[in-house]
């Protein structure tokens, strides 16, 4: 279990997450949502152990992340930043193989597994500069999977993808969760969060204003509080759409 206790995170001398407490279970998709500037990406960095808490702690199965050796932490938690720029025009295969860096082994089986899981076998020799947006997103996720982490933390992986690509990537994340990995994902699209996440953390101004199942955490009153928008959900469970009214 990944747990935050009284977590306060600072960036640039400013508190971006304040006094947050949450417990995140493996085997499901936990989505972090909130308006722009709510501290979603910072919270994800904190949960990944990449932003040291100013107060409180993040623990992984009871052990403080800050006390783990960087390699041990890297073996347990895979982190995928929001649309990273790839410095060198490497082939898909070489990029995915970077996922083995925390283990310092070749990990051929894990790399093949990741290429298979994201249907990248045909693209394995292709330079990353020649990939479409959807292919690139799959390759970046495959890099994380190749490290066989217990936890996958990803920041807005669906940004810049079209609808079909979004659903395909969500399906891959669901498969990871079904296989027992913990998946924590920062999402912008509340519809995707409502229909596909198992649990939600709703942030506003660095504070957790709601958490729980999508129905509870994205109830109209929470949306009104978080986004200052009057909105309601329509449609049946699993295929709901948000209809926004007035501010």
């Amino acid at each position, binding site marked *: 279990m990944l747990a935050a206790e009284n977590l306060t995170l600072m960036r640039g001398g400013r508190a971006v997450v304040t006094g947050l407490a949450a417990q995140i279970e493996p085997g499901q998709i936990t989505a972090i949502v909130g308006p722009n500037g709510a501290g979603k990406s910072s919270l994800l*960095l904190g949960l*990944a152990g*990449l932003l040291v808490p100013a107060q409180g702690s993040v623990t992984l199965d009871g052990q403080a992340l800050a006390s783990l050796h*960087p*390699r041990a*932490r*890297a*073996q347990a*938690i*895979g*982190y*995928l*930043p929001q649309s*990273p*720029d*790839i*410095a*060198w*025009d*490497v*082939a898909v295969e*070489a*990029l995915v193989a*970077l*996922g083995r*860096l*925390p283990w*310092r082994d070749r990990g051929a089986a894990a790399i093949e597994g990741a290429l298979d899981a994201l249907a990248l076998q045909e693209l394995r020799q292709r330079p990353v500069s020649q990939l479409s947006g959807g292919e690139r997103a799959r390759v*970046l996720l495959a*890099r994380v999977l190749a*490290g066989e982490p217990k936890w996958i933390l990803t920041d807005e992986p669906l940004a810049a993808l079209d609808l079909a690509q979004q659903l395909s990537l969500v399906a891959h994340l669901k498969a990871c969760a079904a296989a027992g990995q913990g998946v924590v994902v920062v999402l912008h699209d509340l519809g995707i969060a409502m229909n596909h996440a198992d649990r939600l953390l709703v942030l506003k101004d660095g504070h957790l204003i709601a958490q729980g199942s999508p129905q509870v955490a994205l109830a109209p009153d929470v949306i009104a509080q978080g986004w200052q928008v009057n909105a309601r959900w329509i449609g049946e469970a699993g295929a709901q759409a948000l209809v926004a009214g007035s501010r």
Partner: protein
Amino acid sequence: MNRASLAFAGLLTVLLPLSLLAGRVWIDPFAAALPDNAGLILAELRLPRAVLAITIGAGLGAAGAAMQGYLRNPLADPGLFGIAPMAALGAVASFWLGTAIPPALAAWSLPLMALAGAGLGMALLALIAGRTSHDAAGGAGGGIALFTLAGLMLASLAGALTALAITLAPNPFALSEIVLWLNGALTDRSWREVAIAAPLTLAGIAVLALAARSLDALTLGEEAARSMGMEPGRLLALLVVGVGLTVGAGVAVAGIIGFVGLVVPHLVRPLTDRLPSSLILPSALAGACLVLAADSVVRVLPFVTELRLGIALSLIGAPFFLWLLLRMRRGRL
């Protein structure tokens, strides 16, 4: 050892004997009678000079590959980005200290100050790069432009301070000597210079090789790299020491030789998977080939005085830099 290393190691074994034979006095290995002083020329002039060219080229090639990986910038170069000028500033400062240094240390003061200058330059560059990488989050192009400008600023600042130190030099007779040395050359170098530069350069390349995996992790940016276990403090320390040793040792014995670190990784990259870890050793070998070949060519060019090696490489390197810029503008880098 990868394909690129084998290729450049093979090239080096061809270039080395050719370089030994070429010069004002050509030595024909198939001639019935060798010139009288052939043995002396080979053992005391050409061999140390060739070994020094290999040493300096290897150091600059490895340093360029490591710097390009660390700064995630294909335009990074120890000379252009101020590391070699900082080493030169250190070396010139050691002339200044002159009599203040105890005689026992005097022989080592120039190389040591050059190493310190190079290390300091790398640390300053990393500091600037670290700051800009936060400010430029999201704007990848802006990041590269900022690093490049920061490096050029560091180079021109170190150059200006060096010029100032020379202008105010207490001993005017040393002036012309310093200016000539700054231009970079391997003329009249002996085994003494090899003894200073070779061990330091080898140590530096070994230190840079230790950084290889962390440099690979940086391919996806600093946060992704840290998530894969890269430790920024350790990596910076390896870069400061490794670049300080390789570039500082080269500058200490041969002055500033620019553009090798810029050009070489680009020659090597297409032969590899393009990750920084695959570039360091082949770039060292390719750098050795480039400097050895260039030094052999300047030696046989029919000029009244020998063309300075540093100037010759700049004449090749500057148009190459321009070509890289044009390619980057078309998004092909």
